[in-house]
């Protein structure tokens, strides 16, 4: 992992570094661990001593939380919505990014401006007009409508990241491919996508995380309980009472667990993808 050019970095490899590493690990992992511990204790136990370890592991709380909320439905809906949206975002976003980065054409600047200005639009306001539109297209209270809104809403960021990366791919590769008679689509498919894999991984990850946890649009655009997505499931535990900290912790654990598991399994692949970076 460390090549000859990096010996100098070994200078850093001393106790300050270790201390820093330990501190930051505690800082980033600590809160999560605290919630995990709290999820196995009951609320009175927690109030009695917030930081003690569980005296009795209350596994039944998880079963309780699962059965009380409509968890499986929400999970399924979230999966459908987010996976579809991320796939669409990646494909459409990559196409736009490739086009904007590669080709000189008259509308280039305008197209770029239009799409990137989507980066700075506040969702709190768009939501009211979006609602009207979904109604008119009969997409209100449908998963399809939500997917389309998600894609439109996050296209800007995806294009921004991908375009920046694609633009750095050396033009020679494309010129050579063109000389060989490749068509535009083939160039996109065979050159841009494989080489741009790290950036694609980045956007897929980012989009997945953001959309999996997206809340405002889901709440307003889906009004039937069996269409709801996961973030709304967490809100079930956040009723006006919010005193049941024990159950809330359990609910939070259930909400975080799938993502952590997914990430745990795929992190190696994902990070390899993102750090593969061998453009040259």
């Amino acid at each position, binding site marked *: 992992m460390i090549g000859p050019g990096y010996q100098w970095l070994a200078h850093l490899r001393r106790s300050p570094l270790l201390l820093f590493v330990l501190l930051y690990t505690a800082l980033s992992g600590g809160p999560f661990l605290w919630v995990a511990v709290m999820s196995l204790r009951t609320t009175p136990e927690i109030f009695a001593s917030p930081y003690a370890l569980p005296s009795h592991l209350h596994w039944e709380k998880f079963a309780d939380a699962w059965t009380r909320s409509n968890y499986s439905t929400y999970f399924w809906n979230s999966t459908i919505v987010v996976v579809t949206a991320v796939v669409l975002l990646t494909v459409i976003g990559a196409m736009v990014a490739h086009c904007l980065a590669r080709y000189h054409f008259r509308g280039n600047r305008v197209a770029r401006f239009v799409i990137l200005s989507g980066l700075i639009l506040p969702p*709190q306001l768009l939501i009211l007009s979006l609602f009207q539109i979904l109604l008119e297209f009969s997409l209100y209270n449908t998963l399809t409508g939500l997917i389309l809104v998600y894609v439109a809403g996050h296209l800007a960021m995806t294009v921004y990241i991908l375009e920046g990366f694609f633009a750095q791919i050396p033009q020679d590769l*494309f010129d050579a491919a063109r000389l060989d008679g490749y068509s535009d689509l083939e160039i996109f498919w065979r050159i841009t996508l494989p080489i741009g894999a790290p950036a694609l991984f980045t956007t897929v990850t980012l989009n997945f995380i953001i959309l999996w946890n997206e809340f405002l649009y889901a709440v307003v655009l889906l009004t039937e309980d069996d269409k709801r997505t996961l973030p709304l499931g967490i809100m079930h535990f956040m009723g006006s009472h919010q005193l049941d900290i024990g159950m809330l912790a359990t609910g939070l654990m259930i909400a975080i667990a799938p993502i952590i598991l997914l990430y745990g399994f795929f992190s190696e692949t994902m990070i390899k993808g993102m750090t593969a970076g061998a453009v040259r």
Partner: protein
Amino acid sequence: MTGVVPRARPWGRGEAGAEVSARRASLATLFIFLAPALLLYAAFTVYPVLRTFWNSIHTIGPHNVQELVGAANFTQLLTSDRVFWKAVGNTAIFTIIATIADVLGGLLLALCLFSGAPLAKLLRVVWFTPVLMSYVVVGIIWVWIYDYDWGLANFILRSVGLGALEQSWLGDPRTALWSVMATHVWKWLGFNMIVFLAALYALPEEVLGAAELDNCGWIAKLVYVIIPMLRPTIVNLLVLSFVGKMMIFDLVWIMTGGGPLWSTETVSTYVYKRAFDWNTFDLGYPSAIAVLWFIIILVFVFAMTQLLRQRDRLEF
């Protein structure tokens, strides 16, 4: 270019050796690549935006009656809305400082892992976990951490003897914004770290090796070699982070709802309050806020990209 430049076809092999510029594409190609996005955009972004602009110069009264008020909303906003300007100030402070902290911190963490800290692979996962959590989860957890009586923050301060420093972190106007900022940075550091890490691994070894041979000290190497080479990444992350934080809503809403005494009121929370929480169905005023803010951000982003962004093509 003069003369007719032969265009490539979108699909299908052409003859090898045909002199076609890889920089030009036929209309068909452009259409295929851009159409889906622009269509989605037209329906789900352009219309709402235009509608918002439209709303901003109207007032919506009872029975959905729209009344053209011209610049009245904007005048009121600019001259007599104290909360708006407080929100702008808060958002500006938050954005600038948190962005710098975010990107700097991410770079630091990446360098840490890059330099071969032990268990780097495990740490990559652990340090990335905050990014995976939703704002709801993060907000709730950190409200507990900041709790005056039994929160982790004050608990730790007390146990190391710094009990005098304990605060009502989210309840004091002086510390609330910084506390929320700390939480937000905590959440996103991992992401910047991963991106920087990827960029670091992509750095060509030869250049660094050459610098090594020149006997540069490691700080010099960092400042004069690595950072300039990371420049595109840094700029990208700065812009992304900047824009994201200008729009911050979820975390603030969950942790403080804009208080205490408007010290954490951001433009987004204020827009939300006026649209949904204000005993009125009038969308005109919140639309005006959003339009004004949109223009402000546009100016900033434009300035930033002009200043920072260069089209580096690394040629070999």
